[in-house]
């Protein structure tokens, strides 16, 4: 499947494989993705690979299509009424040929604004995905909730208040609650769309630390406006500008020695 794709004309091998020490396993790939809202084209021919157990940061100025790109990766783009063309592969299989509900279980998403379910307790907020997916048995549900909250570094703060409402938490705690909710259904890939943009520096640091831990088990794609954050948490960085993928490389390379002038300008703050 993979080789077949590589043989297609106009399909560049996007990942700079030679720069990585080990041949990585590719978890997700976008192949010539175009995305539209009505007639307006928002993404132009985007191709990139996301290796397993790595963190990919997507950076770029506001409105360049970062959110749209990650939403194409778990079929949320169509929920907002958008359309797309091209291929998105998860483990070399086209996610647009499979059941969207099942795909979204495998590819979790954390949103920019924390969005816990307001009428549910902390416990139920984490358990809700299990119940939806029929993964729940009475016995394991408590265990999974505890494990997910621990992974999201929230357990110690809420373990005595699991029955309190999810919205009674602070913004940073709510965001970690949403991360726990996503982890509870054991996705393979986690997409985060500016997960820390509404948070203070301490809460942000916690989330970044969390991302570090999570990549042992998950493949992560994070959208961020914050260059330092991208540099700190990611292994690979993709720079998007006006719906086009300008440069995609190892984070170290992008931030120290980008090959394209536009990337350098953006990173050094000359525009955007």
């Amino acid at each position: 499947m993979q080789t077949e794709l590589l043989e297609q004309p106009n399909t560049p091998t996007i990942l700079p494989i030679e720069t990585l020490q080990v041949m990585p396993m590719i978890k997700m790939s976008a192949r010539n993705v175009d995305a539209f809202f009505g007639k307006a084209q928002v993404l132009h021919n985007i191709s990139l690979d996301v290796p397993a157990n790595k963190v990919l940061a997507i950076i770029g100025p506001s409105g360049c299509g970062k959110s749209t790109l990650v939403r194409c990766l778990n079929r949320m783009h169509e929920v907002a009424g958008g359309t797309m063309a091209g291929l998105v592969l998860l483990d070399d299989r086209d996610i647009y040929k499979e059941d969207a509900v099942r795909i979204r279980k495998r590819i979790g998403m954390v949103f920019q604004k924390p969005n816990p379910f307001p009428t549910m307790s902390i416990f139920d907020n984490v358990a809700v995905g299990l119940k939806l997916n029929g993964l729940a048995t009475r016995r394991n549900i408590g265990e999974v909730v505890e494990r997910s909250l621990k992974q999201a570094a929230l357990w110690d703060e809420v373990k005595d208040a699991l029955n309190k409402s999810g919205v009674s938490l602070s913004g940073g705690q709510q965001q970690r609650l949403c991360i726990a909710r996503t982890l509870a259904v054991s996705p393979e890939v986690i997409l985060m769309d500016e997960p820390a943009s509404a948070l203070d520096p301490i809460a942000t640091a916690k989330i970044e630390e969390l991302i570090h831990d999570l990549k042992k088990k998950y493949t992560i794609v994070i959208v961020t406006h914050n260059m330092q954050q991208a540099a700190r948490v990611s292994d690979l960085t993709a720079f998007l500008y006006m719906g086009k993928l300008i440069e995609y490389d190892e984070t170290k390379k992008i931030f120290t020695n980008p090959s394209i002038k536009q990337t350098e300008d953006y990173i050094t703050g000359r525009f955007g």
Partner: protein
Amino acid sequence: MSFVVSASQTTKVPVATSPKRHFGDVAFKYTTTIFAGFVLLLVLLMGFEMYMQAKPTIEKFGWSFLTRTVWDPVQEEYGALPFVFGTLFSSLIALVIALPLSIGIAIFLSEMAPRWLEPPLSFLIELLAGIPSIVYGLWGIFVLVPWIRISLEPLLSRHLDFIPLFRGAPYGYGMLAAGLILSIMVLPIVTSISRDVLKAIPQTQREASLALGATKWESVKLILGDAKSGIFGAVLLGLGRAIGETMAVTMVIGNTPSISISLFDPGYTMASVLANEFTEATTAMYLSALIEIAFLLFGITIIINMLARLLVWSVTKK
């Protein structure tokens, strides 16, 4: 002591830096407050006036007015129970019929319908609310009641007569007709408020559930969970509408002050008895009894509407 002084100094700061207050703003604030207060005063005055006018029966019967079933102007014996029962029972029937329909339509409008379809459909439903109730009443007499007598009641009693609700002779006029007509009349209000409540739930909530791998139906269920207090409010508003509805009900309910569990039997509501008998109330006691019923109706509708508004606000305000 010095602490107190410094505290009062700090409280002065925001006053000094606050923008200059304009005379117009102040005047506007006070005039609007006066108008708002006037509405409240009007309600209180109405309640007080009714209480005063109803004094003779309140003093004679006390609380038993609520539990007595006789209504005999000749003997000067009055009890409100058949009317209270008729009002609550007909409203309940209306809700049982209208509720699933309204919520179903509201879900369709806010969650399922394509964007171009929602406005015209909403408009049609709100149009139902604008039809005068006398028109509903006439339709009830000429279309609904004959259909109930000839088709619906015989059918129900043939198949469901093991349930006491569906026993008795098919008159056509009665609780069933009143409940059905009321259900059509409360449908628009329950539907449109439920739809507003659902639409007020932020899109991020829908995305949250879908991104967790919820199906459309599961996502709607979660949204309904968020919206339930608001929808309950919509139902209460519908109930308030049903309880106060007069004309259409009076025309089809049969106007008989009896208490019966059968839907086929005629009944009487508080609003109907007021409309029908007010002109005949020649004695002071008769008038007082009617006004006491009006007072009850007034109290019940105010309480229900306030509760309903509170619930709807609690959801849509955020």
